[in-house]
């Protein structure tokens, strides 16, 4: 678990509900890796979500779950909406510097 995750839990403790939203907002435009109930993995940019955890990913690619470790060619999907009930797990990419990724949205 990285330090960010640690921080978030602290924020929650301090400020209660509002910061759930602000934390989600921080994740916007970052790379998400979502595993679905049927085993497929989607990697794309987190764009939008709602209370039911329906997630919209932009520039999304679909990866089939590989049983024998080989990575298969992804299929480009573009803009997709993943219904919350089909999400098994969500991972976020921490490699990129957040400031670099998000420069479009800064004033």
């Amino acid at each position, binding site marked *: 678990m990285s330090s960010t995750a640690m921080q*978030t839990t602290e924020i*929650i403790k301090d400020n209660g509900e509002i910061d*759930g939203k602000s*934390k989600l907002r921080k994740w*916007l435009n970052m790379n998400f890796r979502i595993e679905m109930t*049927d085993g497929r993995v989607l990697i794309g940019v987190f764009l939008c979500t709602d209370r039911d955890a329906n997630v919209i990913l932009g520039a999304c690619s679909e990866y089939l779950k590989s049983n024998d470790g080989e990575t298969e060619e992804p299929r480009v999907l573009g803009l997709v*909406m993943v219904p919350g009930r*089909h999400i098994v797990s969500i991972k976020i990419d921490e*490699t990129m510097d957040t400031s670099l990724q998000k420069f*479009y949205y800064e004033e």
Partner: protein
Amino acid sequence: MKTKVVQVIFHLLLCVTVIPGSAYNENNVQNFERKRDIAMDVTDFSVYYDVHTNETIRKMMPRPWYRPGWRLRLPFTGGPCECKSYKCTCCTGIRIEAFGFDRRTCAILKFEPEEAIINLEVKMSNKSVLVKMFSASNPPPFCVPIPVPYLPPGLVDMCIRLFDVSIVQQRLHVCMDMDTRIDMAPVLILHFDCMDMGIDGVSLSKPGGGGSNPANAATNGDTTESMEPTQVNGDVYDPVTEDPNIETTPQPMAMDSLPASPEVTYNWVDITSDFFKYIQDLKLGELLHDGHLFGLFEAMSAIEMMDPKMDAGMLCNRGNPKPLNFPQAVACGKLKIDDLEPSELIGIIDATMACIVSWLEGHSLAQTVFTNLYLHQPHSIINKTLKAYCIAVYKLLDCIRDCINKALVFEEEDFLPMGYGYRLGSNPQMGSTYDASLEVSEQKCIAMLREQEEELNKKARSFDDDINNLWLALAARIRFTRMIYQALLVITKRDCQSGADCVALLNGCSEMMKIIIKTSGKGTQPVENSDSPNPMGFEPMINQRLLPPTFPRYTRIKPRAEALQYFDELVTRLRHAWKITSCTNFHTALDFFMDFSRQRSCILSRSALQLLYLSPSPASTASSAVAAPGQPRPHHPFIEILRESIRSFVNPPALTPKSPATCTPQARELVENFLVRCVRPFAVLLQVCGHNRARQRDKLALLLDEFAALQEEAESVDALVGGGVVGGSGAGRSCFGTWLLYHVLRVMIAYLLAGLELELYSVHEYHYIFWYLYEFLYGWLVSALGRAEALSGEAARRDTKRGARKHKKRARPHAREGLMCQVLQNMCGGYYKALVAFKLQGKIRQPACAFDSEAVRYKHRFAPLAVLTPPQVHYHEFCEMTQPLKYENPVILYLGGCKHFQQARTVLETITTPDQEVTDLLKVAKTNFVVLKLLAGGHKRDSTAPPEFDFSVHRHFPIIKLV
């Protein structure tokens, strides 16, 4: 500052140019310097532009999934063209990070002056991906789609566009654009310099004849600004690194491995539980998103995962065993590539034909024909018959696609031209590997099929029992394939063989089709309830992952019997289409086009008809008609066709060779200019007739605008040329105007009638539609025809006066058409009166007045008619003119309608040699006559049950039924 530059570029969708990045070193500086002066502008995805004028022609809504800002980067660079004698090489590096695409692409043009042929070769990272030959003598712009092998096929492709092609004294002038398209929309458009190749050296010039136009200048202005390397964030615009070695060391590439793009490493951190915790802070229905780039609209256009209708990938995953590809299927013995039984071959061929039909009905190649595994590696098949057949299928598909692409009369619902990475051209195979030794020319393909035919016939002769039939049946299929391929080649290429040949080939096809249909039961049949069209060789799911994200997830292949029937009818249609070649007169040709369209022909026969009438096609004739100012007038055979059409219709003095009106060069110039202006609208009219019925109506409306502009020109020509002729009656003479008016009226009528055919009007609207046709359009048409006859008669008298007694008494050429107009006018009158009477008797349901405005509806229905010389009749005029009828006795109206139908019937019965149209109309007129008679007699007077309008006999003129 950085961000601002980027935002300006992306958000304002400006044209931007080469931008180097911050990873900036000596080497790059040099690269950059070298490329700085290249005239090249990149038009962002919102913009299409016209290659001739460089003007934006329409804005396009960017598809939400490649909106700017989502880590989709489009840096690019293009090199200058390098020319040596007859060969020019233009290179560009293109990188689209989101798709892991980074390639150096070169287009190599070779000109062979003796044969006037351009050879185009496209190389990606030194691998040849396309080799094509063009005749340099056809000037219209054309586009060669290049599949990008390492990318999802259909999603991204490239297009080399050669335009401004001309040869003057063995010097070739050609301009080139290279488009990178995402989902068929150009994303990048690179202009290269125009090339001049010839004996006395080569030269380069800017497109558009030298001078840089304002649009370019503006772009260049932007360029310099954004080229400041320090202003741009290196993460956005990386310079395309061009490895100098790349030309000499080709990298091996395979279909199933992605290009070696810089390996992306992720550091995934699980946030599942946090995420699900945080979202609970959102209110019900609240969306958390980035306000200024993403909103509900974008959210709505996302495809929903795990929805069976939207998620094409779901099916691949549903527990089915992974479909086997060709080598796997061969290895495990599921696919025989040798020692096939004739019944198996027949089964495979028939199933493939069913797939081709499904493709022609608008499904994708990937889900139809290329579910056939044999087509994945045709060269690996050992059985010679099957190998020859599979290669021929590739060639046949290519030819069909070529034909349809040339004619340009398809919409997305008719036909999907995408190839999904299957190389259809001269080198039939799948994937990115290119092996020149596998090249199969047209002749070679035909020869292979011929050889198999003989072989099979020989085998057929050696057996003489029941099995004999099978070899014969197989031979018929191979023969059919060869002949249809040859026939389509003739139609598509037009120049290679004689016409009689094609008729003979098509007749042969028909005969073979009879045998094929008779023997369709001899082949292996699909397993019941199976998705596969044949037990062996087909994997319906094999290409599922090649499909774009939103795609109909499953295509049902047409049942075999129906598919063979389709082929049979297709051949008949092609034979019918061939008859256009004997239509010398434009009017007869136009009637033929309209008649052909009425039969609701398939896309291939519609396209073939287009190509058969005008070479290369009406579409290209239309687009080449607009010459850039200053250039010599394009000369096209279509001008002569139109000239002849005018001559035979009105015979204006300006077009008779010895007339005084043609004496002044000024007058001649005026007439010629007018004819040139006519080319585009009339070519488009032919093209519109080739579209499917549902699309024609809107296109006709657009065409009316163009005709309006032409009418003005016709008037001025008539005023200057038509006036000063022998005899004093010049005032009322307007030859060109009459000719144009006739066509405009026909287009207007076709537009209004199309609404009936497409069931766009509700019953309570019928009355003003029929009123308009009855009171005005048909009446005008009759008088236009009358005027034309008078004019041409006058001209004939003029001729005879001069002693040229060519045709003493010409039969009235438009007699039959005039009669038909009267018939239709009467029919419309009949309907109109009947409808008013129905309305008065309360038999037609009217919309609730609170939600209704007849004025608005009326305006909407006749809006496209507003722009032209026959003035539009406005709603208030309609009200004034129809006012008296509101107080009429319905019985009198019924009797009036009755009389109209009676009149129509009488005229119809005088027509000698009635065709289907006449008999249908006669039936409608007779029935309606009786119905109205009954109504006039008081039948069902008090019933408010609405009458029914039955369009089953005639698509425009219904039979009135009382319920």
